[in-house]
């Protein structure tokens, strides 16, 4: 094994199991347990990406999923955080854009020309200049991913989990919470972002590692704990749903590139820990400048020595502990800078002194140099008077810890700045949420574990688990107060420069922020928008605390270090993984395959797939008028309404009086909403005492159900409604030969006397039990047959076989459209819209004026004498017309309305249709309708009074 430290008990990679990955065309040997980033660092890779604005070299800062500096293209997938992606044999890793030589890196030298908000102040005069500039701007950003298709096999997965307790964070606190709850017998899911459990303690040298191992093995004993490692909780939504994203979930299922766990838990413990804040100094973004956790992870987890001479800087004792730990691993530690006056704890001071490591107290970092990576640092006394250069190849710097609080923000808990601690602490959490661990500023491992158990017990109480019978020992909350951390002092002119970066994602410097404040953008929300700080890929994870500090320095009165709003997701999630749960499914008729076999051309229409035609809709319509045709009407909504109050319910929604329906009559009805707007029509058949079969239009079926339920609920009626839409196939058999065809298939008396127009009967057709009614929709002798759905194809085939010798053809909705327009049937929702009332639809005749309980009648009565704004009219044009639906109806410059339906009737040799138009004098017999269509062509039609065909309705009564 190359370049790694000798085997240590804390390492999580297996030096006996090499894994080859490909990076920029070369092959790199990593080991099982490595992440992509650890493998690349071990291989000496310095630059991982280029920055957004100035194209500066960037390398991982945190190695713990917080910053976005290590993102690359992995196996064709863009913006993957390489620090949390385990290596896999054959993995292809590519930087996003040039990293070695980046011509756009020249931008770095011109940063003086790009002050805050310079886009707003430049380029707009003259107008054409902006058009030119914006194309240049578009091409500029660094680390831009290319949009390319994933391999066809790649897929995304999604699993719903409903545990009693969700524990977010697999550190000491989280593990203890999970164990405590699992011990009480509840179902627990614990989620950890790293590939391994342990959190912060796992990389605190051997003692910490041992502690985590003890917890891990206790945890493993519980079958009721589901463990999700390598999984990030990206969001908690208002319904309590926690979305957890797992990259490349299993080695075996390589095609599954990302899996979401959608966790809906009874209670949640949030133990996401704390990270380190970057220090603010000039050129603090160079490769080689890392946070303490990155150094610790490199050394303890992956046996990687930070490169060359290492300088550490910070303002708490932790930085001294890290320095010692690194030294013990053979790292060349050249010094520790501590910006506190008091300096490090005495024992740390003397231990470092023993090893000859200088400690500079009351000093801070102010600047760095280096090209490919850092080569030296400027260390300055905090009074600004003394300065020296320290040669170093790595800087481990942090200004203190910072809670990973974003999920708390998503559940509506604000973080309040505690000036004494220089730390953010949460306000009261919602009832079913608990927080624990380093997130609350705790340091002592025992206190952290106690706090974890305590959080679990509170959660158990919330779940209604009797903690006494569950034999859970009472655990007092941790009483250790969080340790105060010194706020980083800032030496104005030395430290806050144009290359002192606060927001790494967008290259926003301290100078930019100061300038924005001076220009009046001194509220965190406006300053954030103006500078674009905190709005990059890491969404403020690295910068929001420093951003708030800088703002508070200049405007202490305005802000008590309020953090910007937190919004989902905490870390990015792929569109593919987000999309798994949603599918747009069309409904399929029982006659779908049968019709396809007969040459039907299908099209998705609304929620159904329907047949447009069977080759030639005009020929089909002629056949319907001369011989016969059959058509699938299965998608009509169908309802069984029964019970003592069935009539009351139907009379509520129908504008006609259902009491007038008797025996084997059919009943055409229209329905309005409370505004009197026409919303539906259909047929009702009385099947028995208080027992009805009601059809609706296809589009309205879903709404009808809830609408009926609403009135039942309001009135407390004794009535049952069953949606039987899918139980029956519907076949419309129409044409002069229809009776002859049907009579071949049934023994029933279907003569005009026995089964006249507007009557129905039960009968067997080809042995299939069917409800057969006489309707008039297509203007010919017309039977509508409803039979069991599974027997629909059989019945269709039987009718086709019987009818074919007589010229029977199947027809689709285009032909249906011709026939209904010939008869002048207005289709609700097609010829009318959500404003058209029953009168405006020219269907006032369908309103029973004596009925009082009808929905919409009050409005219809009150507006009867009001001026109509629009109404449905019919028109016709001799021969074929190029006018299409949507054409405008105009009178000179005035726009009167639009064409809602228009079609050529081969029988009438006319183009006929409906329009929805404002009132006009022309709407009288012989009046002219003028169309304006296709960007200005005009056409004329004649106002008409439907029906166009068989006005006396003799053919439907045959």
């Amino acid at each position, binding site marked *: 094994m190359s370049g790694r430290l000798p085997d240590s008990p804390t390492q999580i990679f297996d030096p006996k199991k090499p894994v080859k990955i490909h990076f920029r065309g070369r092959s790199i040997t990593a080991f099982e347990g490595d992440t992509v980033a650890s493998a690349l660092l071990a291989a000496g890779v310095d630059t991982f990406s280029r920055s957004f604005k100035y194209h500066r070299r960037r390398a991982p800062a945190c190695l713990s999923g917080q910053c976005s500096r290590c993102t690359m293209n992995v196996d064709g997938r863009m913006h993957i955080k390489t620090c949390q992606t385990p290596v896999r044999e054959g993995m292809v890793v590519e930087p996003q854009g040039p990293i070695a030589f980046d011509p756009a890196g020249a931008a770095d030298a011109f940063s003086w020309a790009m002050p805050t908000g310079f886009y707003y102040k430049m380029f707009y005069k003259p107008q054409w200049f902006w058009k030119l500039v914006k194309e240049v701007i578009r091409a500029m950003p660094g680390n831009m991913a290319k949009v390319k298709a994933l391999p066809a096999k790649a897929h995304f997965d999604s699993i719903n989990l409903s545990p009693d307790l969700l524990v977010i964070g697999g550190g000491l606190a989280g593990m203890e919470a999970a164990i405590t709850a699992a011990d009480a017998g509840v179902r627990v899911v614990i989620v950890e972002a790293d590939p391994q459990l342990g959190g912060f303690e796992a990389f605190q040298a051997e003692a910490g590692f041992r502690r985590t191992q003890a917890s891990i093995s206790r945890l493993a004993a519980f079958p009721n704990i589901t463990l999700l490692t390598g999984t990030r909780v990206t969001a908690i939504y208002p319904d309590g749903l926690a979305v957890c994203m797992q990259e490349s979930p299993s080695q075996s299922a390589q095609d599954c590139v990302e899996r979401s766990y959608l966790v809906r838990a009874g209670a949640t413990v949030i133990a996401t820990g704390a990270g380190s804040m970057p220090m603010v100094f000039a050129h603090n973004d160079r490769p080689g400048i890392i946070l303490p956790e990155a150094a610790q992870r490199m050394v303890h987890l992956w046996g990687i020595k930070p490169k060359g001479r290492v300088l550490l800087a910070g303002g708490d004792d932790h930085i001294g502990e890290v320095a010692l730990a690194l030294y013990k691993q053979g790292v060349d530690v050249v010094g520790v800078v501590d910006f506190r006056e008091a300096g490090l704890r005495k024992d740390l001071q003397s231990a470092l002194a023993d090893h000859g490591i200088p400690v500079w107290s009351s000093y801070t970092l102010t600047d760095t140099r280096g090209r490919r990576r850092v080569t030296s640092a400027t260390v300055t006394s905090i009074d600004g008077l003394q300065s020296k250069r320290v040669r170093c190849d790595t800087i481990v710097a942090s200004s203190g810890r910072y809670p990973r609080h974003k999920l708390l923000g998503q559940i509506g808990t604000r973080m309040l700045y505690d000036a004494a601690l220089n730390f953010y602490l949460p306000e009261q959490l919602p009832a079913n949420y608990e927080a624990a661990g380093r997130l609350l500023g705790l340091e002592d491992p025992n206190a952290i574990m106690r706090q974890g158990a305590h959080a679990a017990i509170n959660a158990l109480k919330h779940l209604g688990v009797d903690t006494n019978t569950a034999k859970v020992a009472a655990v007092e909350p941790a009483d250790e107060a969080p340790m105060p951390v010194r706020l980083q002092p800032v030496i104005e002119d030395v430290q806050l420069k144009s290359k002192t970066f606060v927001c790494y994602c967008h290259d926003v410097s301290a100078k930019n922020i100061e300038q924005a404040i001076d220009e009046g953008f001194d509220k965190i929300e406006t300053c954030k928008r103006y500078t674009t700080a905190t709005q990059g890929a890491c969404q403020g994870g690295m910068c929001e605390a420093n951003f708030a500090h800088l703002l508070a320095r200049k405007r202490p009165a305005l802000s008590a270090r309020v953090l910007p709003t937190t919004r989902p997701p905490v870390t990015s999630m*792929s569109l593919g993984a987000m999309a798994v*749960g949603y599918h747009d499914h069309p409904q399929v008729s029982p006659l779908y395959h049968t019709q396809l076999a007969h040459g039907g051309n299908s099209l998705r229409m609304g929620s159904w797939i329907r047949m447009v035609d069977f080759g030639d809709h005009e020929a089909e319509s002629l056949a319907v008028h001369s011989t016969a045709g059959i058509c699938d009407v299965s998608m009509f909504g169908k309802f069984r309404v029964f019970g003592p109050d069935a009539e009351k319910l139907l009379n509520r929604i129908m504008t006609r009086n259902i009491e007038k329906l008797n025996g084997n009559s059919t009943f055409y009805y229209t329905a309005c909403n409370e505004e009197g707007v026409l919303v539906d029509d259909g047929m009702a058949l009385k099947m028995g005492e208080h027992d009805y079969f009601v059809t609706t239009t296809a589009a309205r079926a879903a709404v009808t159900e809830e609408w009926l339920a609403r009135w039942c609920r309001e009135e407390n009626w004794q009535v049952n409604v069953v949606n039987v839409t899918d139980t029956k196939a519907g076949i419309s058999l129409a044409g002069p030969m229809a009776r002859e065809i049907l009579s071949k298939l049934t023994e029933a008396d279907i003569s005009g006397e026995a089964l006249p127009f507007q009557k129905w009967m039960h009968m067997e057709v080809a042995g299939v039990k069917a409800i057969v009614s006489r309707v008039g929709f297509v203007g010919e002798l017309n039977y509508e047959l409803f039979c069991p759905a599974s027997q629909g194809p059989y019945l269709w085939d039987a009718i086709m076989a019987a009818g074919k010798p007589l010229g029977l053809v199947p027809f689709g909705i285009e032909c249906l459209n011709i026939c209904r327009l010939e008869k002048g049937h207005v289709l609700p929702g097609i010829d009318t819209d959500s404003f058209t009332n029953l009168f405006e639809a020219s269907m006032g005749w369908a309103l029973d004026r004596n009925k009082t309980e009808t929905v919409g009648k009050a409005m219809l009565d009150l507006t009867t004498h009001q001026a109509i704004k629009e109404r449905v009219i019919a028109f016709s044009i001799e021969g074929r017309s190029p006018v299409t*639906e949507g054409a405008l109806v105009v009178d000179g410059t005035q726009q009167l309305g639009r064409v809602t339906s228009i079609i050529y009737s081969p029988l009438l040799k006319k183009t006929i249709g409906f329009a929805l138009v404002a009132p006009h004098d022309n709407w009288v017999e012989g009046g002219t309708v003028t169309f304006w269509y296709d960007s200005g062509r005009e056409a004329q039609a004649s106002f008409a009074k439907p029906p166009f065909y068989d006005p006396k309705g003799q053919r439907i009564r045959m």
Partner: protein
Amino acid sequence: MATTKKVLQYKEPEKHYDVVIVGGGLHGLATAYYLAKYHGVKRIAVLERRYIGSGGSGRNTEMVRSNKRAHETLPFYKDSLAMWDDLSAELDWNLMVQKKGIIALAHSDGELASMRMQSDSQRRAGIKIDMLDNQQIKKMVPSLDVSDQTALPVLGAQFHPEGGTVHHDAAVWGFAKSAARCGVDICVGIEVVGFNVEGSKVTGVQTNIGDINANKVHVAVGGYSSEIARMLGVKFPVVTMPMQVMTTNIMAPFLNYYVASPRLHWYTQQTLKGDLILGGQLDPFSSWNSYTTWEECSERVATILEYFPDLAHGRVVRSWSGLCDCTGDSAPVMGPSGIDGLSLDIAWGYYGFKATPACGKYSAEYIATNKVPENIKAFSLDRFFNRQRVREVIL
């Protein structure tokens, strides 16, 4: 180049103003600007309870277009769209206007018909709109799947070349900057809690820091209009619903147009920065909380991916939402409120951003002259009582 000239200037409110504008969003700021600049009104205050542009002004998807069909409202939107062009120069502030063109996809014959109708209505009003076939769409947006393999295949599209985007925050700051330079007092942290009305005339507002007297009060509070209604003891014809939006990681330029599917309620555009803005549907219930939800984001992403399959590994980095006060007829309420001196600019749903310049111009004209300008007559509150609602179908 660098300048430390103050861009945003706030004032403490005085005791009396000629016009008090409630709401420091785009509409309020624009109205103040036009009043001060073109109507010579001297003493104007804009009262904002949070920070300027904190509501819908800063939460929309930056789309500007003229996409209405109701002929009585078309001149208004046409005007607004045209006004954006000259605003950068007028406000001396780059609003980053990009008339990149908007492609609205049709997935059915009915939609095509509807688009044809809309296009023709707009052409008659002098707005440029074309219909595209699938071949043309594919040429303009190569990454878009126009095959018949999608859930609802694309059958054509409407192309609105004059439509595009304007940087919403830039617009807020541009109007604020220019309004302040014209003498408008922009007061933040001032929350209006009530109105003083004498007889049938408004005399001022009550705020968290005391009463402010005004000859005229103008309400431009975006999604929060019903809170104003409660202070006045009335109701408005609106329901407040959130609209959720997402943004992705940065990608190399691949999408030059704003692409939308009105039927599937999504739209997407790539910003100058390279991220995609994804969004498009109101939550299906009323809410005053600007959260985002998994269900809505997931459905939006799925319906977009259906047509941009290559984006499956694109990554969402942030989601947010803004409140929309929606009427049943997809048109706003502008002009008289029924109380003398109190004017309304409310009920904008999710199409208030694009209307900003015209809103400012006509609101100012109404406030200054007491006469309702022709172009906003259709937006009266009375229309809900006399069956003159705008018969709008949004695409």
